[in-house]
Structure formats: C-alpha cells, structure tokens
C-alpha cells in the first residue's frame, strides 16, 4: 500500500515550527520555481528561496512565510524543510512589513554606488523576506 500522506518537519535555528505533522502534500518556493511535494516522492534535495510554504493540516490550510534554506525528501516519506527563519501568518505584522519593504526598496533604488556589494546583498535578502511575509498574509 502506498502512503497517502507525508510527515512534515519545518526546522529553524530558533526551534522547530512544525514537527511531524501529517499532511497530504506541501507546496514550497524552490530555487527553480514553486514546487509541490506529494507522497511517494523520490529522495530529493533542493534549495528554498524566501517565499510561502503551503499545506493542509487537517481541515485548515496553513501558510508559513520562510526565509532561505532547503528542502529534503527522505525515502520514508518524510519532508524536512530547513530554513533560516519562518513565521506563521498570525505572527506577521503585514503593515509593518509593508513599511519596512518601502524603506528597503528606497535604499535599493537610489545611489547604488555608495553602498558596497555586501550591503546590497543584505538589502536584497531583506527585501525577499519581507515580500514573503506580505505574500503569506495576502488572502
């Protein structure tokens, strides 16, 4: 009998967000585009970019904003999402994120010359993370 569910772990440096939840499938923002993982997936590793992880937990559909990291599918139908940060929709302050995003975008748009490459990369990361939060809260 093939499994019809997968076990999902979402781990972050600040502790696990989800541990061993049983889900029918999960959608994640991969480096090469949005991808869905269903039961019986081959063992698989791919990077995750900032975005929204979606899955159904019981009757609820859950959205979690995640930072960069990677996804691992093991042979025993386990999916592990390791990301540097993750926030549930209820933990996100969308208005604050929008204001922050405006500030970051403003910093990014004017005078690229005065900020160095490291600073630029930091801003781009921040931008991706804020956009992920906003997208997670969008209906």
């Amino acid at each position: 009998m093939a499994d019809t569910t997968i076990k999902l772990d979402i781990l972050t440096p600040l502790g696990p967000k989800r541990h061993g939840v049983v889900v029918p499938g999960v959608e994640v923002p991969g480096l090469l585009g949005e991808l869905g993982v269903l039961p019986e997936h081959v063992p698989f590793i791919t990077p995750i970019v900032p975005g929204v992880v979606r899955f159904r937990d019981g009757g609820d559909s859950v959205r979690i904003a995640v930072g960069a990291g990677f996804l691992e599918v093991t042979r025993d139908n386990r999916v592990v999402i390791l990301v540097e940060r993750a926030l549930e929709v209820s933990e996100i302050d969308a208005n604050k994120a929008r204001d922050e995003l405006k500030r970051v975008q403003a910093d990014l748009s004017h005078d690229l010359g005065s900020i160095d490459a490291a600073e630029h990369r930091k801003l781009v990361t921040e931008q991706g993370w804020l956009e992920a939060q906003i997208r997670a809260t969008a209906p």
Partner: protein
Amino acid sequence: MANLKEIRSRITTVKNTRKITSAMSRIAAARLVKAQQAAMGARPYGERLDQVVGSLVASLGGESEGEEGAAHPLLLKRSGNGRVVIVHITADRGLAGGFNANINRAVVNFIRKEREAGNDVVLLTVGKKGRSFFQHSNQRIVRHHDAPTLADLVVKAKAIASEVMAMFTGGKEGGDTDLPQVDRVYFAYNYFKNVLTQQPRIEQLLPFESREIVNDERVLPVLEPGRDALLGHLLPIAVESRLQQAFFNSIAGEIAARRTAMDSASDNATQLIRELTLFYNRERQAAITKELMEIIGGAEALKG
C-alpha cells in the same frame, strides 16, 4: 572589644555578599530555562543541516582535495604553512566560574601548537572577556564583536560568517581590507553538555569538513540543481549554522556556569557565616567569662 566588632562587621559583609550571589544565581536560574530551550530547539536544525551538507561533501570523495578542482571555494584545502584565524567565543561578563578561563586556556594551548607548527595565528573575538584576556599578550585580534544575545544571535552569526568566509576566500567579497587572508578558520566555544558541564571545544570551520560520516545506506537523493550549485547555496548556510550553534551553546553555557558558580558561592557564604557566628559567640562568651573572673578576683582580693 575591638576583635568582636571586627567579627561582627565581617559577618555583615559576608551576608551582603551572599545577598548578591544568591540574587545572581536566581536571575541565572530564570534565564537558564529560556537559553536552554533555545539551545535545544536549535539543535535539530543544526544537526540535520550538518548531516545533509556533510553527506554532500562526503559524496564528492577525493574531488575536494588538492589545490585545484575543489567543488566550491569554501572546500579548498591549502597545503603548507599559512595563517589561521580562531573565532574565539566567550562571554561579556565574568562571575561565571571557570567558563571564560577554560576556553581561554584551551585557545592559548591551541595557539601555541599552531605556532610550533609554523603557522601565524590571528583572533576574531566574540565576547569582551576573550578580548581583554588576549589584549595583554601580543596576540593580534583582527575583529571584535560583543557576545551575542538570544535576540541578535542570528544576525551576528551571519555577520561573522561572512567575515570569515571573506577572509578565507581571500577578501574578494565585501572588500574589507583590514581582514587578512587566512588558510584555515577555527572556532572555539563552550559546548553546553548539561547544566553542570560545559566543555571547551575547538573545531574547524573552514575549509568545510563533514563532522562524522553518517553511514547513509539511503540512495543518494535527486539533487536539483546539480551538486555543485547546491553546495554553493548550502555551504554558506552551513557555516552560518555552525556559528549559530556555537553561540547558542555559549549563551546557555554561560548562564548555567554562572548559576552553578553563584550557587556554590552562596553555599560557601552560608558556611562562612555559620563559622563566623560560632566564633563570634564563643569570643563573646569568653569575654564575659573573663570579665566575671576579674570581678570575682577583685572581690576576693578585697575580702582577703
């Protein structure tokens, strides 16, 4: 009697000291729970990440050896003598038993060994105690950060990781000129084994090596994109994660060490107070007895 007064004031002093140490111990106990949970909560992430990246690196086999052809700049092993940097993680504050002293001593021994092997050693200190310890010797400190807190730990790990990666890859990234180029990067920290035990550890950070080869009987998973691109994405994260883990351990270890140290300091103070009080009472009684004897003696002499 002067002696009695001295003892009395000594008892007061010790009692005041005990107030401080027991307050510190109680504060540490309250913070310990949070720090311990954070350290334990972070471990699954760090271990899993380490395993995955480790098995990826291990699957490269001998490809990562040698001067050229390393799959990723962070794996490049440089032979011969050169310069090493140690990320030396201590606390900002003392009064934590042997916490800072142990790791300082371990690093001193390590530096001596590296020097004997003909390598130049520079330090990147995290935590004021480590810096002040090495400032007095002629040890070159290239960068200093204050000890991380649970709140800014992730950001700090990111910053330090990018500094050491820049030093290792030859300062191409960022353009920091005051960071010298290094051939190896180590990090030294107190591993939080449990509340009573913290072990000083010195581990290699770069070139990145898998810790223990987990004997994976699993089929090698499908990688997307290819292995080298994946390593490019994951290696910086893994380096950051190792530093994060070290910070978590160091924070929990510092608080645990302080709690233990302050606990035993309070116990010692209680013991000292008991001894001093006994001594004080004995002296007081002796003084009374002596006075009585003098009065009696005086009375006897008058009678005679």
